[in-house]
């Protein structure tokens, strides 16, 4: 799965918007949305929120965890712990990227948030490299992946491929 497909899945996450238009309830195949009234917050999937924002039909509200103080705490916690810590959303990376790219005007301290989320990502990638190395070297048969987000699992084909390749090399050398 590539980054674009992970983003596709992330676009299903619900976010809150404040529309500037009126529309009755819509009955999508995947569920009901709305009704939309100007000034009243409503929850919609991210793909629709970004599209409406691009058409200047709404304002986006940042998710509750997208706050400098909260993210600082999470980042420090992630740095301190050797294992992976729970993330605010399985798609925190993709949500941050999409919301900051399309609606940075609706998100206070957008630059700081971008840096904090990137720090958390970098810390986790480093941990992934370490755990992948030990997994392969010790030829573990199974590893727990608590708090691994989909983006992390598929950021490189490395992890699941490495173990497969190592085993293939070993059996061909025998």
């Amino acid at each position, binding site marked *: 799965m590539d980054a674009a497909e992970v983003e*596709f899945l992330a676009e299903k996450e619900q976010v809150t918007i404040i529309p500037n238009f009126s529309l009755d309830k819509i009955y999508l195949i995947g569920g009901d949305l709305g009704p939309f009234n100007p000034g009243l917050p409503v929850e919609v999937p991210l793909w629709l929120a970004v599209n409406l924002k691009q058409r200047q039909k709404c304002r986006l509200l940042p998710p509750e965890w997208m706050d400098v103080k909260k993210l600082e705490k999470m980042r420090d916690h992630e740095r301190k712990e050797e294992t992976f810590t729970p993330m605010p959303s399985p798609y925190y990376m993709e949500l941050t990227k999409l919301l900051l790219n399309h609606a940075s005007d609706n998100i206070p301290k957008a630059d700081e948030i971008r840096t904090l989320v990137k720090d958390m990502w970098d810390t986790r990638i480093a941990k992934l490299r370490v755990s992948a190395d030990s*997994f392969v070297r010790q030829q573990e048969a199974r590893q727990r992946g608590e708090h*691994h987000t989909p983006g992390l699992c598929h950021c490189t084909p490395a992890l699941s491929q490495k*173990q*497969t390749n190592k085993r293939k090399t070993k059996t061909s050398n025998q």
Partner: protein
Amino acid sequence: MTEELDFLGQDSDGGSEEVVLTPAELIERLEQAWMNEKFAPELLESKPEIVECVMEQLEHMEENLRRAKREDLKVSIHQMEMERIRYVLSSYLRCRLMKIEKFFPHVLEKEKTRPEGEPSSLSPEELAFAREFMVNTETYLKNVALKHMPPNLQKVDLFRAVPKPDLDSYVFLRVRERQENILVEPDTDEQRDYVIDLEKGSQHLIRYKTIAPLVASGAVQLI
């Protein structure tokens, strides 16, 4: 106005029973089937009911939009959603076709030796495709290379020549139903087999072969 769909599902005894699904649940199932198919090294069980129901839903919605008033915003939102669903459906079918092309002799052999009552990995159309692909490949190899070889080298056993799916490759999964006593076989001879429990909601990186039946039953989701 969420209608419920009559969905012909299989229960654990292999008998068909009608499972009623909302359209939202149907799309959820499609996405689960898509992800499982993407990450599993072998071709998974065919899900014709899901594919048919999704296509019906899309056609139904298309009809409604054609008849609807020209309300640009509403129509465009529906169209965006349909595009997303179409993408997942095509990606799912494309993934399956790719596996069929890659492993065609093994897929056909599996279908030939499939016991009665066991669900097929191929839909009727996919089976026809696989057979044609086999015939075309054989004809191609014969005309391009084999007939120019010395007489005793003119046969090729595609079953031996084409690699099998690597069921030992590692996959990420999330546990949906708690499983007990799963036997894990390590790679090295020094390590012994051990048994683990899989708690609901946990995530693991493990060899596909160990958990293949759990993917088929829906107890785990590949991620």
